[in-house]
């Protein structure tokens, strides 16, 4: 469980997050939705500690992020897996080396055990025969899936996914959504997913946080989302529908 209390984030004069509080429960898919530029990426980066919040508190299962020393934050980070918006694969390494990297750095597994774990994770994201390809040789969807494999390889307790299915075809998107949901339930981890994909919202939105203008505008489940009468949320959903139809 991750709890955030009243977090603010400023870049110079520009205030991106304006006091957001919520709880992300373990074992369910927590979705953060909002327009492009609304601060979703900044929010997960702040929660994960990659960006320092201007004010506010973040608790990882009761452990307060701001009161940890360097050793404790490093230990916490090893419990976090993150899928970045662009994949952030190491382009000097092959797919297998990318996925293996967290194990290589910190685990005490033998080489054979690492290989087995890498195979398992690549299998899990449906990429069994890509071990020796480089990031530049992958399609966008494959990169995302390798990034997911890398994020889960070291058995994280917390998983952050920044738009795991942006730019992918609807079928692959749903596949990835389902994959993340399954992993979340299987491993019973705390998962936060950024998205502006309506399919994801309706498919896996067990807890949805709608960010508008740097504030938490609406919160609920995928069942509430359709029937809610929040104007901004409806605009967000509705505009999305239009763009989707225009795409067809």
């Amino acid at each position, binding site marked *: 469980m991750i709890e955030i209390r009243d977090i603010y984030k400023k870049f110079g004069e520009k205030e991106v997050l304006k006091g957001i509080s919520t709880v992300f429960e373990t074992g369910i898919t927590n979705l953060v939705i909002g327009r492009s530029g609304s601060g979703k990426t900044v929010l997960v*980066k702040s929660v*994960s*500690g*990659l960006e320092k919040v201007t004010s506010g508190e973040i608790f990882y299962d009761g452990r307060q992020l701001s009161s940890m020393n360097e050793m404790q934050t*490093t*230990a*916490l*980070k*090893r419990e*976090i897996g*993150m899928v*970045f*918006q*662009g994949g*952030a*694969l*190491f*382009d000097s390494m092959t797919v297998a080396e990318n996925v293996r*990297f*967290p194990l*290589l*750095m*910190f685990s005490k597994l033998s080489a054979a055990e690492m290989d087995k774990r890498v195979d398992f994770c690549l299998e899990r994201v449906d990429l069994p025969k890509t071990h020796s390809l480089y990031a530049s040789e992958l399609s966008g969807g494959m990169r995302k899936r390798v990034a997911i494999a890398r994020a889960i390889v*070291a058995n994280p307790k917390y998983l952050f996914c920044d738009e795991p299915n942006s730019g992918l075809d609807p079928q692959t998107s749903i596949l990835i959504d389902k994959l993340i949901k399954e992993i979340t339930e299987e491993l019973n981890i705390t998962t936060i997913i950024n998205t502006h994909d309506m399919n994801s919202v309706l498919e896996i939105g067990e807890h949805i946080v709608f960010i508008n203008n740097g504030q938490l505008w609406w919160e609920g489940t995928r069942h509430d989302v359709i029937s809610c009468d929040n104007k901004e949320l409806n605009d967000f959903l509705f505009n999305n529908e239009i763009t989707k139809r225009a795409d067809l």
Partner: protein
Amino acid sequence: MKKIVDAVGSYFILLGRVLRKPDNGKAFRRQLFFEMRVLGIESLPIACIISAFVGAAVVIQLAASLSNPIYPTWITGYTSRKAIMLEFAPTMIGLVLAGKVGSRIASELGTMRITEQIDALDIMGVNSANYLIMPKIVAFMLFSPIIVILSVFSALAGGWIFGVISGVITSYEYLDGLQLEFATYDMVYGITKGIVYNFIIASVSSFRGYTVTGGALEVGQASTRAVVESCIVLIVSNLALTSILI
């Protein structure tokens, strides 16, 4: 002025994060060998070519200026050797490598920064500054004696070949001068300079690359700044080192 002070402060803070024990010794050694190849070995050809031609120009110039019979015949060889070992080989090649290696390091790290690869390392709990920068600094410094020694030899050989071909000096006079009063200290002096320069180049350009914010345009700017600032720091420290070491 405030910007410069800020940058220097951030530079030393970053260095503080770089100079730690690596998270994983094996990974460090692997990176180190990789960097020795791309920063070290791949710098040797350009260092040799530039040195050979600069050496030739130095010898021809000196021979022409010192052609008056009042000077002893060994003077050209002797002064060429001194000039090349003490200044040209380390400093000139330092400036050239600031361009080659500095831009490479800054653009590599800058690209990793803007594509979130550095964030990815950080979120895994890897000390990204140490993991990425330390092998570059160590590898490039380790290669510095090799680079300096090869440059000296190329420069002296270039001077010999072109000096004799152009007829400004005979082979005997030149080699006689080269061997006169050979001081090992000159070599130590040149190598010391080289090591300091390579540290400056690798650390300054790593700093510029690692701290990029923005996009591809900023990576380009950072790489230019890395080269310019490495050159300036290098030239200033050359003056300081020359006054200390002489």
